């Protein structure tokens, strides 16, 4: 299949610039993705023409704004393959989505002696909220180990599962190593012991087709800004019955049905979880981003990114000074590596000087770094608007590292 990347790149204004005198190579897509012009224009249009609060006024602008916001819910629902828009909660991002679930489950579901399973691969955002839940309830956090390639040990996972397991929280794709976890199988196993399965989809949604009903996950969270959309918005998908049983997360306007000083009743889903004015423009921008991703096609994106990944891995394999960290069989286009004798930060500064943007550090996954025996790695993360020529520029930039640190 022909994937016209040059045409796609025309949709991303930010890519057409020079950094430090070199063409920008943006390989930090796991941190945040760039935005197509249609998303930028949608935000501009909203503020220039339609801005008003939602669910409040009867005036024309408010109705327009409310309609666009509600359409964004529907778009997100269809994008994820959810059964109902009532199952889509807009949050600030992946982090808030996980915090919301952890907080609400701690309030009326988890109790002392229960166990929460996370994997060793997790981002801090899928560890710390569960630690807080443990502190509140007296339940225990257990860690599913990984092998040296960065893959979750499935037999160990099965051993850890028991009737005490109430929550299994795992990343769909590891932000630090790119490992794609076999979540469908893991979800089914969690359900066999009656556990709730929470999937951190931050690194998956812009890179492969997701269907929450096929996965049968109980909760699935992602961030708008890692999915070509604006910052400040995320999505929490939750099964209707679970969301209905959960207490509200925050109190305020929009989440209520009726307020009196004696008793307050709460709004229907999804608004029960949306206290205060929601991120209206961001939701509208996100919906445009999701439509855009669908117009390119998630299957085509996944296939093209795999070609880029394979090309990058072949080029890196020719450099003995590069040691790959994480070599899962099933992986997305995220490559973590060490440069022999040079700290990741120095690699990052030198690459920046060559116009190449990558992330260097612990990638908010300190327990994983500890397990792998490293303090920091360099990470190149790709998106479907990247090219083989950019990978060549990245490799040339890596060769400069040696010149500086000879």
């Amino acid at each position, binding site marked *: 299949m022909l994937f016209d990347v040059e045409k796609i790149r025309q949709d991303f204004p930010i890519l057409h610039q020079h950094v*430090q005198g070199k063409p920008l190579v943006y390989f930090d897509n796991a941190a945040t993705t760039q935005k197509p012009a249609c998303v930028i224009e949608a935000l501009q249009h909203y503020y220039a023409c339609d801005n008003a609060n939602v669910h409040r006024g009867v005036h024309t602008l408010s109705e327009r704004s409310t309609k666009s916001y509600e359409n964004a819910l529907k778009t997100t629902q269809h994008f994820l393959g959810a059964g109902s828009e009532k199952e889509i909660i807009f949050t600030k991002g992946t982090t808030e989505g996980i915090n919301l679930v952890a907080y609400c489950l701690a309030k009326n579901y988890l109790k002392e002696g229960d166990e929460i399973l996370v994997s060793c691969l997790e981002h801090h955002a899928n560890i710390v909220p569960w630690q807080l839940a443990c502190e509140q309830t007296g339940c225990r956090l257990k860690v599913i180990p990984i092998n040296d390639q960065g893959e979750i040990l499935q037999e160990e996972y099965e051993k850890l599962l028991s009737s005490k397991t109430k929550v299994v929280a795992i990343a769909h794709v590891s932000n630090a190593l790119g490992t794609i976890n076999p979540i469908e199988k893991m979800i089914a196993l969690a359900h066999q012991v009656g556990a709730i399965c929470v999937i951190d989809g931050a690194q998956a949604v812009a890179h492969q087709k997701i269907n929450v009903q096929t996965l049968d996950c109980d909760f699935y969270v992602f961030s708008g800004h890692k999915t070509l959309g604006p910052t400040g918005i995320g999505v929490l998908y939750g099964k209707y019955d679970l969301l209905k049983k959960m207490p509200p997360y925050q109190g305020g306007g929009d989440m209520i049905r009726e307020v009196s000083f004696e008793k307050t009743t709460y709004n229907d889903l999804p608004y029960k979880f949306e206290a205060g004015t929601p991120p209206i423009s961001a939701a509208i921008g996100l919906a445009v981003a999701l439509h855009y991703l669908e117009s390119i096609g998630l299957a085509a994106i996944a296939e093209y990114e795999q070609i880029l990944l394979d090309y990058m891995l072949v080029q890196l394999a020719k450099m003995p000074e590069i040691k790959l960290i994480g070599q899962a069989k099933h992986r997305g286009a995220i490559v973590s590596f060490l440069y022999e004798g*040079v*700290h*990741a*930060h*120095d690699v990052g*500064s*030198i690459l920046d*000087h060559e116009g190449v943007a990558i992330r*260097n*550090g*612990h990638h908010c996954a*300190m327990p994983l*770094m500890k397990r792998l025996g490293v*303090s*920091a790695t360099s990470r190149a993360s790709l998106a479907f608007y990247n090219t083989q020529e950019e990978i060549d520029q990245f490799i040339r930039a890596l060769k*400069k590292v040696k*010149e*500086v*640190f000879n």
Partner: protein
Amino acid sequence: MSGLRELYQEVIIDHNKCPRNFCKLSGHSHYAEGLNPLCGDRISLYLDIQQDKIERVSFEGSGCAISTASASLMTEMLKGKDVEEAKKLFSVFHALLTGQEASDEGDDIGKLQVLAGVKEYPARVKCATLAWHALMDAMSGAETHG
């Protein structure tokens, strides 16, 4: 390459490769850890201060070339200085990296000048000052025999 050479001067590369006073100090009087939570860089700083004078100083840890070289150069500079002189060196060095005008007392920061290029890279200033913040913590802390 020219801009990069400003950042990675030969002295920095040398101190990164062979950091000076890179060991645990037995019988130290003061100690502090420096941690950069953004990148996970970690350094342990040991001081032996007698009658307000830094008799011996050493460090351990892992970090980038900038933080390692800065720590190494710092230990070289500090030996024999008294606590007040060390604090002054910190403020002059800090001013150099944050682009503030250094005080006009003709402060001689000697070899530390090689780190001046870091001010063009704001994201790296924290790397260069990691050991220095540990120094301030160590000197302000109670005496320790850890």
